[in-house]
């Protein structure tokens, strides 16, 4: 459990910035008149979690324990499924599966890719 306490006490600036943004599906969907209860990326997030579990990189029990821990600490004020996404990124950073600098750079690259016309 001490590993999860440490997990819960850690904060990543990159994820903290996202946490405080008001871009959750709960907020955006009504604004655009969208009735789908889930954002389009949710299925992909689930698939990522399953792939990590099956490959052994992040076993499901450990991921769920970390999600629970973070749901009551770092991301207590974030709704689902954004909270699950933040918890997954947080757990992967904490385990060294990805680095914060890689993640930050990749996010910038992806945004420019998606916004390219």
């Amino acid at each position, binding site marked *: 459990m001490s590993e999860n306490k440490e997990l819960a006490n850690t904060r990543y600036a990159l994820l903290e910035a996202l946490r405080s943004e008001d871009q959750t599906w709960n907020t955006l969907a009504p604004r655009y008149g969208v009735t789908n209860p889930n954002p389009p990326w949710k299925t992909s997030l689930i698939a990522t979690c399953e792939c990590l*579990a*099956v*490959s*052994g990189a992040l*076993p*499901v*029990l*450990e991921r769920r324990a970390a999600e629970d821990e973070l749901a009551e600490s770092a991301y207590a004020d974030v709704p689902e499924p954004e909270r699950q996404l933040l918890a997954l990124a947080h757990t992967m950073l904490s385990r060294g599966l990805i680095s914060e600098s890689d993640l930050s750079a990749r996010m910038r690259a992806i945004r420019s890719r998606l916004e390219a016309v």
Partner: protein
Amino acid sequence: MRESESRGTPPAAAGKARFKVGDRVRVKDLPNLFYSRTQMYVRGAVGTIAACTYQDLIPEDEAFNRDGRIEQYYIVRFRQKDLWPGYPFDNDTLQTESPERWLEPADD
């Protein structure tokens, strides 16, 4: 890949099941060594074997990728009155699963 291996075909038999359906058992109150899926709320409680389910790795090993010990699992039925002091409905029950190592015969 260990976790996936534990899922598919059932592992080799762990020997004969110690308990049978209808047996009265008590959930041991063992210390939590690193990891367990045996809930605190059933520790020390007496219930009845409702089903002998399957044989598989015990969670204490599975969670840490150790070479696993295989055990018989059971579904144990408890009266809610026996789990929670003052529970007001006589008929209500709760079932939970447990590997064999957490159970001992109850002679009540």
